[in-house]
């Protein structure tokens, strides 16, 4: 694999978005190419520098202020005035939805590889049947170049 191709995909490689044989191919190239390895190290260092910068604590009473604004606008009361049957229906729907979610989760298991969060390695998108993951998109990008 050429250096230019490897460098184009180093960002996605570093983010864990490229899996399988293509990942191995890039890894093999990196083993033998000091220049690309250096490029990856520089990329990692920049990302780690950004990650290490802290953010101020969230403001106190944000939730209180949000709720106050909702109540003031009347939106909270409007929602609460829904008829009893609507609330009963919504509660029943909640039970069905949670049960369905558990069932879908159990059915999918680990079946969809590479499309979940890199943070915990699990699939978070059981609802996206047709939307491609980056791994799938990467395949087409790789063959185009």
């Amino acid at each position, binding site marked *: 694999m050429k250096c230019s191709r490897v460098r184009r995909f180093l*960002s996605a490689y570093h983010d864990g978005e490229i899996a399988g044989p293509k990942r191995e191919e890039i890894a093999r190239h990196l083993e033998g190419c000091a220049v690309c390895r250096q490029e990856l190290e520089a990329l990692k260092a920049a990302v780690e520098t950004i990650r290490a910068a802290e953010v101020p604590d969230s403001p106190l009473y944000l939730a209180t202020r949000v*709720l106050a604004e909702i109540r003031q606008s009347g939106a909270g009361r409007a929602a609460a005035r829904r008829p009893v049957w609507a609330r009963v229906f919504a509660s029943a729907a909640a039970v069905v939805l949670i049960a369905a979610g558990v069932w879908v989760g159990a059915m999918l298991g680990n079946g969809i590889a590479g499309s979940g969060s890199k943070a915990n390695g699990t699939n978070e998108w059981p609802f996206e049947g047709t939307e491609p993951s980056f791994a799938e998109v990467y395949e087409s990008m790789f063959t185009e170049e």
Partner: protein
Amino acid sequence: MKQPTDQDTELVVRSKAGDLAAFEELVKLHERGLFAYMYRMCGNRDDAEELAQAAFVRAWGGISGFRGESSFKTWLFRIATNLAINKRTRTRPTVELSELLAAPESRQPEESFRRKRREELVQAALDRLPKDQRAALVLSVYEGMSYKEIARALGKTVRAVDSLLVRAKQNARRFLEPARKRNVL
């Protein structure tokens, strides 16, 4: 990013039924992450607070239309992203990296001073990125979202997200290079 929890799912369903207390719980669960995202997007506390509050209020207003095709968090962050991209943030003096690097030594304890300067340098670099690049980078680096999740939050394709991240990282590296050379990062 954390997996959409049963807790979120239950709170969303109750919120859709008009339960404001349930929505308050959702706000408490996500306020820290959303505020941090908005802070990175606009670079100042006042705008970040205002945008985070506005995003939550809009989320409440639109929750009946939330279909659960993504996690509540991703949906909320998409609302916030739109607000942040469309908002003209408060005018504040542009802080150039060179100015930050040339700033006089502080009397603060050294580590505290170095940490604060590091934060300012990183935020100044983020501020210089186009907003879509900044959003993609912040969601990737700080929120740990996958490209697919970022695509959902930004309303873009995963391929577009990949391109945004490539350019964002190249630019951020370039902006931070002077500080790195002077060993202040």
